[in-house]
């Protein structure tokens, strides 16, 4: 396929991906302030985080200054993203597949970034020797990513199917997701092997994509690989794989949200507790038009 098909196809998908992701993130951000539900260890609690302690360990904590540190938070997140430490510690038999799948994805993303850099080099007329080095790196990273990603995706598929701990919980969509990922990696391997110079082809394709060059072309295995990967990008925001972003909220907005009420929060809370309840349980007494405020402020609990 050649010409503007690729521009339309890829830019529309990227646009939709960004819009859907933004929508998902905004809808999380716009949710009302919730009741506290923190869970130790809260890692921003300086020093005490080591054993899971919190500021509530201070005598008359409300009069004390709070000491927060974000280094442990960053170290924790890095350990999770780069090493999948939690799975290593608590679910060792899953780790090899989870790790390889994630690293497959990371390496493919890195290779895409390198293709982009190479595209810039082509546009700017960077000396061939420099470009060769970068293309070589991109080619190696790409193929390693495809291979270990395939191992991870196929391994997880088998694990889901063969291990009784997973089988009952694996719906068609769980397999579909893994099949899709495996298709990206395997089509990547085929494209890589069947191309004379995979990295150069990808760099030129990327350049043509960014410069809106109507001569853009990709055929055969490479075209199939690009199409599968692009469709996956569109599919991703509708799945639980968005945890690469939303994990931030499960941690920061719930587990580690240990903020006592403050003035700004109280303003929002006043609006929330003024809302009527519609629960039908007899003790809620929603038929009397009770709001949260009625219960909280007017001793409505008394029969």
């Amino acid at each position, binding site marked *: 396929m050649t010409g503007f098909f690729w521009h339309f196809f890829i830019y529309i998908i990227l646009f939709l991906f960004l819009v859907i992701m933004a929508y998902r993130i905004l809808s999380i951000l716009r949710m*009302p302030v*919730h009741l506290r539900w923190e*869970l*130790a260890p809260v890692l921003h609690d300086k020093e005490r985080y080591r054993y899971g302690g919190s*500021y509530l360990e201070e005598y008359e904590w409300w009069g004390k200054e709070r000491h927060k540190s974000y280094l442990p938070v960053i170290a924790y997140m890095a350990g999770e993203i780069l090493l999948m430490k939690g799975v290593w510690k*608590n679910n060792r038999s899953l780790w090899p597949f989870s790790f390889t799948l994630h690293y497959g994805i990371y390496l493919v993303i890195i290779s895409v970034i390198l293709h982009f850099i190479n595209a810039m080099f082509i546009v700017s007329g960077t000396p061939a020797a420099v470009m060769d080095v970068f293309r070589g790196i991109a080619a190696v990273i790409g193929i390693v990513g495809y291979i270990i990603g395939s191992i991870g995706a196929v391994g997880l598929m088998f694990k889901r199917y063969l291990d009784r701990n997973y089988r009952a919980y694996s719906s068609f969509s769980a397999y579909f997701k893994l099949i899709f990922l495996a298709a990206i990696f395997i089509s990547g391997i085929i494209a890589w092997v069947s191309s004379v110079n995979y990295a150069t082809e990808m760099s030129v394709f990327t350049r043509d994509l960014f410069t809106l060059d109507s001569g853009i072309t990709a055929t055969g295995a490479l075209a199939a690989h690009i199409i599968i990967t692009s469709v996956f990008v569109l599919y991703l925001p509708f799945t*639980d794989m968005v945890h690469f972003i939303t994990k931030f909220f*499960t941690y920061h907005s*719930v587990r580690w949200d240990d903020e006592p009420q403050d003035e700004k929060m109280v303003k929002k809370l006043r609006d929330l507790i003024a809302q009527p309840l519609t*629960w039908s349980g007899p003790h809620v007494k929603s038929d009397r038009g009770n709001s949260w405020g009625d219960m909280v402020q007017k001793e409505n609990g008394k029969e």
Partner: protein
Amino acid sequence: MAKNKPLKLTDISREVEDRLADIDIEELIPLPPPYDKNGGLPGITQLSDDQKQRLVNNLDGFSALALPKPKNKEEEDKYVRQFEAGLKKLLRKGDNWTFLQPLLLSLEHCVRCQTCSEACPVYIASGRQEIYRPTYRAEIFRRLINKYAKPGGKWLAKLKGADIELNWATISRLFELAYRCNLCRRCSQHCPIGVDNGLITRELRKLFSQELGWAPKELHEKGTVLQLQVGSPTGLRPNVAKDNLEFLDEDFTESLGIKVETVWDKKDADVLLLHSAGDILSFPESVIGFAIICDAAGISWTLSSEIPGYEGVNYGVFYDDVQLARVATRHVQIARKLGVKKIVMGECGHEHKALATVADRLLIGDLNIPRESFMTFFENIVFSGKIKFDPTKNDFPVTLHDPCNVVRNLGIVEPQRRILRYLCPQFREMTPHGVDNYCCGGGGGLAVMSDVNINDFKAAVAGRMKFKQILEAFSDHPGPEVKKYLCAPCLNCKLQLRVIWDYYGVQEKSGIYFGGLAELIVNAMADLKKPFINWGEM
């Protein structure tokens, strides 16, 4: 591995009378001697024929809720419709702003990696019964929400192969299953994504309570409702509470040879002590211990005799946001009326969780009275130099149980340990401990639930990991000849331990006694002529 045949998620909606699992005591994880031979133990009580006739019994052979069988199909359908309405309300801002964000984050991002399963003491102790896996109930609930509460859900459920039918069997099983979880959140702690199966279970309980009016009677009618009406789920009315304590004051004054006097309703005291009435009735040494410590340290303190100011429990935290808000509000209103500077939360874990954190964003404006844990309150006193201690008085093996609601949920870990390391020469930790602890098996309200045969579940299954680690902590003195002290600074944990103790005969076989933290502090007071810990009466 469990002998029951592999369970599918869709089994939850299969024929009503059919049990999903049978719990065989031989399949549970083994305990250290002398509890390794199941023969000498009570086993699991089966439901009587009459109970089988009357009650829903389609889950695991236990009944926590004594749910009567519906009279006819219309009644079944009515409940199913209500449940479906409740699923929708859980996703509405107005009805569920309190937990909407945490709930949706947990519902939408589980990757079914099962990392949480190995963290769950109930699942592990049961010999890995599928039915108790943290994700079993959570995944069913997630699929029901996706199918019945979201637009296009029914169509998508089919497409994704995640279709579970909502019928009477589903909801009656889910109701019981919601009370096979201690809400201890150990699973949540281990989830790499941050999904909280404990929260999902609580939301499920909440739906049943707030929409269908279904809740364990010990938590609702005889729990929060009774507390708001007469003062305490124990039924203890203010005048009786005062009489009881007056009697206890006299009793301890006589036996200890020091003046013990409970202060009631003192205006403008610095501290309102918020005990649990269950302590007054079942573990009075704890309440008296607080009085002795406060007086010795010269604290200006008081108890309240107003309904429910002498009862710190708040079962709402286990099952219902509305009741949670009502009880917490009453507690702080009483403190405000008395004009105290702060509330000190007594030895009750879920009281801590309710007042210190969960209700914090409900108690706004002048309801926001400072609230402090007894752990930090005691630590401040013990290390202030106001009281002289002689730690040799506590020279017996001591270990510490970490109540989930204080430790894992609030991060109060070290103050109690600093006290024990100072006052108890033979203090030793359990493995694991601190924020990695195991629940006592009474968490999530189970401690006060005792209907039908649920006590057997609490002792044999839910409390098994805890019991095992307690025995292991004292493995250097396994027999009854050396008296050992398990410090369990939480009323509900102590109530659950009592169930375990009775079931296994722990005191006689192992010589382990349990009590709170206040007792150990008072026992180590140098000026006290007689021992405060009275092994014979524990």
